[in-house]
């Protein structure tokens, strides 16, 4: 194990412990905020699998997230709780099926066309929830009774308690991260890295790259749908903005800000993006300018991306390189 990998493991453990202890020092607002950010981190991880690991720039990730969230709300009866063990798999299944459909068609295109086709399919889903009776329009829908986590009539976890839900989401984030980390070291994960590096060579070696890309796309949609389930349960409210291209765009910014090609980049990026947004929206700090938070956020992101081409997650490697001196710089060599 290289020195970089070792410090990376320690950093990961420290981050996990810090998140686990965070509610002890934070108030209601902080717990709610970090819960939301961790849901976005799961969503950003799903996109990192596509963009950072497979080289597929998907501009419609919000659709799978929104379908997961809407399914939870639409399938929940108004006055009684449904079992999460039934609801969550069905919601993830719907997101997965839509990802399979979108992937099957969009992966026949490449580059900029792929970006546009994924965007088009996401906007299609957006208008289904925005403009048909199914989604009940711009106002969105409330989830009156949160799903139950029960085994044989015994309530295991009460999702209505913010603190409990915080730990549910933290556990989900840790599991998603661990799953993807293991996946990326497997044959499948290495094949995706090969597709990203040189698809032509992969085909010449005997890989049906379309099938690999479709599998990655579908899996990514499933994880995004899972994040959508968590989001719906957290807020108890869904609206069409969950599927809008604004969110798909923000997710791309998150993973670029955090650093493409590294899983931790997606998580760091989600935290950095949401915290920066919060800072620029803070009126005591910025006064009237807080209304124009997008400007401040945008400029900061441009500056950060310009100064840190490998993102925030690439910062330790960058510092190590500078300390060593002008050692040859090879992309991904220590990723």
């Amino acid at each position, binding site marked *: 194990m290289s020195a970089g990998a070792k410090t990376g493991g320690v950093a990961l453990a420290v981050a996990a412990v810090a998140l686990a202890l965070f509610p002890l020092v934070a108030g209601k607002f902080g717990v709610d905020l970090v819960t939301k950010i961790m849901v976005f981190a799961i969503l950003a991880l799903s996109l990192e699998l596509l963009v950072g690991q497979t080289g597929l720039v998907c501009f419609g990730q919000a659709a799978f997230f929104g379908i997961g969230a809407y399914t939870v709300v639409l399938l929940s009866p108004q006055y009684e709780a449904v079992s999460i063990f039934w609801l969550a798999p069905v919601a993830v299944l719907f997101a997965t099926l839509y990802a399979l459909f979108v992937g099957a068609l969009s992966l026949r295109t490449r580059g900029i066309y792929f970006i546009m086709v994924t965007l088009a399919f996401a906007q299609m889903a957006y208008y289904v929830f925005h403009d048909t009776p199914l989604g009940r329009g711009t106002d969105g829908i409330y989830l009156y009774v949160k799903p139950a986590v029960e085994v044989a009539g015994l309530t295991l976890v009460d999702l209505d308690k913010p603190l409990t839900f915080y730990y549910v989401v933290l556990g989900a984030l840790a599991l998603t991260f661990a799953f993807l980390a293991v996946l990326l070291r*497997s044959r499948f994960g290495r094949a995706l890295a090969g597709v990203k590096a040189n698809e032509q060579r992969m085909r010449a070696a005997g890989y049906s790259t379309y099938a690999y890309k479709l*599998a990655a796309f579908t899996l990514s949609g499933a994880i995004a749908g899972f994040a959508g389930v968590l989001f719906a349960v957290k807020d108890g409210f869904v609206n069409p903005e969950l599927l809008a291209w604004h969110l798909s765009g923000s997710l791309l910014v998150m993973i670029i800000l955090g650093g493409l090609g590294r899983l931790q980049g997606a998580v760091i990026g989600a935290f950095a993006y949401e915290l920066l947004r919060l800072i620029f929206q803070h009126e005591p700090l910025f006064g009237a300018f807080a209304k124009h938070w997008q400007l401040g956020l945008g400029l900061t992101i441009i500056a950060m991306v310009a100064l840190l081409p490998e993102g925030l997650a690439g910062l330790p490697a960058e510092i190590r390189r500078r300390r060593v001196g002008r050692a*040859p710089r090879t992309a991904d060599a220590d990723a």
Partner: protein
Amino acid sequence: MPTPDVLLRGERLTRRWGGLTAVDDVTLELTRGSVHAVIGTNGAGKSTLINLLSGEIPASSGRVALKGQDVTAWPQPARARAGLGRSYQRTTIFPQFTVLENCRLAAQSRRQRPWAWWERADACTLAMPAAQRAAQAAGLGDDLDRPAGLLSHGGRRQLEIAMCLATAPDVLLLDEPLAGMGAEETDRMLDLLASLRAGHAILLVEHDMDAVFRIADRITVMVNGAVIASDVPEAVRANAEVQAAYLGSHA
């Protein structure tokens, strides 16, 4: 004499790009244990022929048979898994990965198991040894841990061959493996090809005539997409039409 072991057969292959016929009614056979060179000027259709045989582009007409099986409708990855390896004229490797990982990933195509997400790729008992053997055979045994992008030009050409070998192919389609190589590197590559001859059927597209006449068992000459001669080297050298069309400019 026993019938030769024909591993790959291209039959009346034609490829048109609009009004241009890049490959025109070409028939050729590759047999195990022999090096079949294809020569011709730039634009004669040699690389297109390799692309038709490997399945990278579909033929306008004609058929391809691999080990007796009609593979005309098969996409490139399926032909590759059935034992057809190729190298590229423009080096096509994974520059960010180490030499070993380049070979390992190529070898992994023989045991893909994409559903086994919990198994470490580098623990594969098939791909790892195959990758090491292929790198050794291609003369890269000392460079296993180097990033492929840092290899010399000759080293990258060797890696192309190593990645090809790592997939354990029966047929090798090599597109100008000697391009841009120095004399010493060329010698080493020709030794490698000679050592591979026994177990494989090799198609060699090459501009270096000295090398071609040193190693080829059979030479096919292409002009404007069509074959004008296909014979043993001495006969090709003596062929008046070939001399006029191609070798003439060197004589």
